């Protein structure tokens, strides 16, 4: 497979403070890759290094397809970070995904409007195009942000905590949408989440991220009770029922 992202012994951090040391892994084109771990352990830091907004303090982060062709990333930030006082409509938000292609001094043209409409339909919110973004539900906001990322015509979709704070049905619906973008549109998916169930049942490979505990591999291999108990410093069991992975926190005493 075509390797498009390679971390080699990378130390990542901010200023002079290292958050993660000795990070080595690779992601291939078409993968569904999950980054999991407790809050504040460096998952978003890895995402920033992939996006190029954070340079490694040492080691290398190589990004690019065959023959070094640059990758087109679609980034979906945590939706809590994009709250605005201004009443941006969903259409305006999604059009922002085209701004780089539109360029300076130019306004969105017919092609851009077409791509925006296509992206809205693709994520199932075409009817919300004139709604104000800040008035939407969490799930609708997430779809709008995914549509904006799709409007930039990406090869790789990076999602930062896409299901955080959602009710069960919205969460499932967003995860199904991401699955569809992976299987039907063949997008490479990189999803950051602290919700282990989400990643365990959708990603094919994962990285467990913590300061002194960085492991990469297939979900079944890495997501074990032993690893998770060590990561969260509490008993954690991993069970597989009906083709689904279930994470159970707490030991036998806590089950009562």
């Amino acid at each position, binding site marked *: 497979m075509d390797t498009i992202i390679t971390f080699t012994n990378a130390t990542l951090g901010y200023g002079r403070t290292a958050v993660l040391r000795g990070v080595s892994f690779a992601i291939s084109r078409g993968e569904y890759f999950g980054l999991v771990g407790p809050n504040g352990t460096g998952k978003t830091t890895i995402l920033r290094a992939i996006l190029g907004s954070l340079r490694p303090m040492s080691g290398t982060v190589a990004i690019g397809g065959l023959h070094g062709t640059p990758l087109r990333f679609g980034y979906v930030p945590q939706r809590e970070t994009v709250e605005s006082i*201004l009443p941006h409509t969903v259409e305006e938000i999604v059009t922002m995904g085209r701004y*780089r292609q539109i360029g300076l001094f130019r306004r969105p043209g017919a092609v851009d409007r077409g791509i925006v409409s296509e992206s809205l339909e693709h994520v199932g919110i075409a009817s919300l195009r004139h709604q104000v973004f800040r008035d939407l539900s969490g799930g609708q906001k997430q779809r709008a942000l995914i549509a904006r990322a799709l409007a930039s015509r990406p090869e790789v979709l990076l999602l930062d905590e896409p299901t955080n704070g959602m009710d069960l049905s919205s969460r499932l619906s967003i995860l199904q949408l991401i699955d569809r973008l992976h299987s039907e549109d063949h997008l490479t998916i990189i999803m950051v989440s602290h919700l282990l169930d989400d990643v365990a049942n959708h990603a094919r490979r994962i990285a467990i991220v913590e300061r002194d505990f960085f492991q990469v591999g297939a979900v079944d291999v890495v997501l074990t009770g032993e690893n998770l108990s060590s990561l969260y410093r509490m008993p954690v069991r991993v069970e597989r029922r009906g083709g689904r992975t279930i994470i159970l926190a707490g030991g036998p005493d806590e089950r009562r």
Partner: protein
Amino acid sequence: MNAGDILLSLVRDFPYALIGSAVLGAACAFLGTHIVAKRVVFYSAVLTQVSVLGLALTFLPVFPISHAIGSLGLTLISALLLSGLLTRRRLTRDAVLGVVFTGAIALRILVLQMTSTVDSAEIETLLRGDILFVTAELFYPVLGVAVVVLGLHVAFFKEFVYVSFDAETASTQGFRTAGWEMLFYATAAAVIALGTHMVGDLFVFGFMVLPAATALLVVRRVSRIFLTATVIGAFVPMLGLVVAFAADFPAGPTSLALALVLLLCAAIAARLRPQQ
């Protein structure tokens, strides 16, 4: 004398006051809409106080430069330094701004103590900001800066709005967000500095906040919010001049009082409007 006669009299006798306050009000209101949307209103309050300090410093013999240059220079330098300081993590953004705010006011008071009584009175007059006494020397620099700044902001409207809304995603698309932010604060600093010199800090700060807040209450489209705020910023100071002339009030505070009345009307209208 009716309102029409007063307006004609203002056009004839105080053209720089009339057009200058309208141009400055429009520029402040447009930039203020970004400032309110970015939740950095305190930042503009800090810059107005820094520009006042810059103005006051030029009255000291050790700074033999023009008032406009002194105010503009110190405000631009502060804007650039603040854009770096505000991203550090040891102190919160509010704490850094609070330090600069109180520091600028304290230093201004000390500078006033060090100047002669005549200079001190002139500084106080400048700070009180009587729009009627705007001269050609004050008007043309403000007009030039306002035209350049508004031109830049109209040309790069989508970029400024995007970086303001979601800088993180904009940077992943290749936008140099730090550069756009610096350009935004530099343009705001230029308008604040020259505006403060022309009509005082209260007018500048007030027109950064009040028209934007008014437009946000009654308008539901982003581009129309900017347009509405700019129109309010342009017309209210002219109306303020007419009212001030008729009632023998100071023009700056009168304009701000009218802007406040308009804001209250907008708040009532927003309250009465059925929810969508």
